């Protein structure tokens, strides 16, 4: 059974999604257990696979039994083995916390929600594991299509933001497809390893350069790097809470992984970092993204929108860390993908719990929230501290690697941008803390806002239900644990994930 793990990771959520659709027309209650079961199986299989990769090296799985350039192959190395575990764990954790909130948000369509959720996970896990450039596109479309649908179910501006996301997402995916087409034109194969084998012989070539530009710009649209970020903030803000805590930690991170994969495994290190002069322009793009994302986050009045702009800045961290082109920077970027997934999950789940209770996510309406929802707010603070980069939490360690990478590469502008962004995050979360902890309840103001509800007026504790809180606490603990074990993760896994060429 062990050699079948790569297929199981992807096939089980897909199968469960189909089962959920079959079952929920008859009984709504089975959807959640099936989804949880599928998530657990895929997490277990990912963990088993990572252990196998750690002991024996790269694992290859041939779909339909065909050898690589002819058939589709799944290829798991240290990089995606690690991400498989992280992504399946994060999605499972969010799934566990989704039960009550989803019931409130989707009502009768609960079954469709779980089916789409599972298909979304299928797409993401498939993107991580596949070793075929075109297969990646198909899986990308599954993940995006279900993402559009899930985001579009939110309130107010959600359908419009989701349609914008459809347009931008389609442009991004199509540009990637066009890039793959150029590569196919020049190499005649779609298998990543095979392309990497053929490419050095035909370099230097304008077609390859253009393919590189097209793939990267498509991925930049998908990961919302600064000038192309316009779809992200609204989509994540107006999405339903359970969806934004799923989409926010996962999509952009997986896209950044695809950038790693495309650059390292298709175009090879030598081409991307030495032959063409894209390293510095991309680094500057990342610096601009960090600064602008932080500045725009400062201007927001709504909690979820503020967090969404922080994500835009965080994308800059990882892209910048990668294009520093040295070992410390890449360690930092890979570690930051993991940490960022954990801490974004933590803050968005906390935000979801708060919105679930108050139905309002304006920062100004958070007065006295620490007394009403102590657990959620504490989790939010843990996530916030990690986003700032305070030592026991994981955010500190990846930022440390990124900064030391920046210093080693002599890119002080990048270091300055990182520090600036940390300062801005400090300001943001202190404002949040101040409103939530020190400001007293407003005496009359709440009554004017129709649906702020009875909660804003009562001073008693009104926490979210337990099945929301337990996964939330787990996420907060995870943020701290990842920090404590980050040294282990780097020495055991990440350093093998980065090609030896990079010094």
């Amino acid at each position, binding site marked *: 059974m062990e050699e079948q793990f790569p297929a199981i990771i992807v096939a089980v959520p897909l199968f469960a999604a189909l089962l959920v659709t079959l079952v929920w027309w008859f009984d709504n209650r089975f959807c959640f257990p099936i989804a949880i079961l599928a998530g657990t199986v895929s997490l277990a299989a990912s963990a088993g696979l990572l252990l196998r990769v750690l002991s024996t090296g790269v694992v290859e799985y041939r779909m*339909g039994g065909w050898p690589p350039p002819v058939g589709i192959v799944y290829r798991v190395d240290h990089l995606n083995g690690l991400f498989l575990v992280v992504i399946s764990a994060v999605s499972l954790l969010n799934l566990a916390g989704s039960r009550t909130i989803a019931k409130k948000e989707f009502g009768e369509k609960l079954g469709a929600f779980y089916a789409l959720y599972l*298909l979304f996970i299928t797409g993401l896990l498939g993107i991580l594991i596949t070793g075929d450039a075109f297969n990646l596109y198909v899986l990308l479309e599954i993940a995006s299509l279900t993402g559009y*649908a899930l985001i579009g179910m939110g309130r107010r501006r959600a359908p419009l933001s989701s349609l914008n996301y459809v347009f931008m997402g389609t442009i991004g995916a199509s540009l990637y497809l066009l890039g793959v087409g150029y590569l*196919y034109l020049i190499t005649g194969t779609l298998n990543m390893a095979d392309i990497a084998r053929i490419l050095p012989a035909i370099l230097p070539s304008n077609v390859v350069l253009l393919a590189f530009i097209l793939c990267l710009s498509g991925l930049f649209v998908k990961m919302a790097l600064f000038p192309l970020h316009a779809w992200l903030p609204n989509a994540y803000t107006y999405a339903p809470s359970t969806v934004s805590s799923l989409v926010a930690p996962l999509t952009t991170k997986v896209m950044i992984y695809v950038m790693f994969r495309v650059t390292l495994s298709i175009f090879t290190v030598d081409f991307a970092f030495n032959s063409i002069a894209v390293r510095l322009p991309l680094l500057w793009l990342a610096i601009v993204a960090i600064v602008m994302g932080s500045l725009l986050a400062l201007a927001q009045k709504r909690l979820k929108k503020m967090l969404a702009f922080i994500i835009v800045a965080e994308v800059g961290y990882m892209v910048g860390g990668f294009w520093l082109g040295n070992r410390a920077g890449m360690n930092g970027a890979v570690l930051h993908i993991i940490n960022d997934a954990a801490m974004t999950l933590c803050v968005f789940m906390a935000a979801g719990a708060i919105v679930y209770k108050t139905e309002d996510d304006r920062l100004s309406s958070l007065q006295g929230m620490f007394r009403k929802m102590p657990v959620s707010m504490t989790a939010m603070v843990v996530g916030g501290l990690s986003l700032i980069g305070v030592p026991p939490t994981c955010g500190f360690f990846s930022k440390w690697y990124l900064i030391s990478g920046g210093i080693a590469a002599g890119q002080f502008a990048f270091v300055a941008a990182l520090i600036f962004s940390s300062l801005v995050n400090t300001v943001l979360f202190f404002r949040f803390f101040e409103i939530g902890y020190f400001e007293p309840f407003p005496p009359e103001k709440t009554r004017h806002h129709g649906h702020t509800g009875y909660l804003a007026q009562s001073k008693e504790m009104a926490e979210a239900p337990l099945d929301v809180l337990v996964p939330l606490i787990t996420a907060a603990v995870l943020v701290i644990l990842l920090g404590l074990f980050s040294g282990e993760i780097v020495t055991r896994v990440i350093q093998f994930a980065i090609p030896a060429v990079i010094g």
Partner: protein
Amino acid sequence: MRTLGLIAAFCLGGLLFFISFDFPSWGDALSPASRHVSPYYIEHSLEDTSVPNIVTAVLADYRGFDTLFETAVIFSAGLACFFLVRVSERQVPAARFYRHLATGITFRIEKGGRLPEGTGEFERIDSLWVPYDVIIGMTCRLVVPFIQLFALYVIAHGHHSPGGGFQGGVIFGAAIILFAISTNLRRTLKRMSERSSALLSSLGVLIYAGTGLLCLFMGAGFLNYRALAAILGVDQVAARSDGILIVESGVGIAVAAVMVWIYYNLSSAGKQDEGL
């Protein structure tokens, strides 16, 4: 922002234009694309799978994993349309229209009025109703079964001629959509309810994924149809051919059901009450 986007778009166009001079010429038989992997498919597909249509062989076997997810994409599109636009049936429309069958007189019944259902003398009609045209009604009634038959032929004959599960499924779905357009949505829903279209679409993908899992449990890899030889009692090449037929019919069922499902939701704005 808009002009900036346009400028970027035209820069991209110019770049693509200049790079196009580096391409191999159109139809060049010696271009790398036709030399590396594709000769393998052309020369070996017949002996590997005994399917003369190379596209079908590559689609459902060599790259069968892509096709599994292609089916999953179309399935999630159906699910997504349902999820986004379907509104609960309990919303009573503002006014309904009825037609007395014997006399042809039409009635408008306001919200809350007594509905003449169940008497058998009245027929519900759409609010934008055009009198039935005998020619259109009769033609569609005659044509629909033949279209469906053709769809089945396309699915079954995909091994030897252009076509396969996807095309056949779309044609089958289109036949049902034609029926829905030529009569009305409610009559179609009686023949193929929303629930059955949802169940069928999921069942279709389940056939595909299930075949894959069956191969996995038989000890070969996921979607390795060779493992079906033991069950079907044929040799391994024929097992691949049969495996392709099984998954193609799964694709056909899923696609037909999803097309109808999407049409139901789009044409009635999710109310599934009055169609096109």
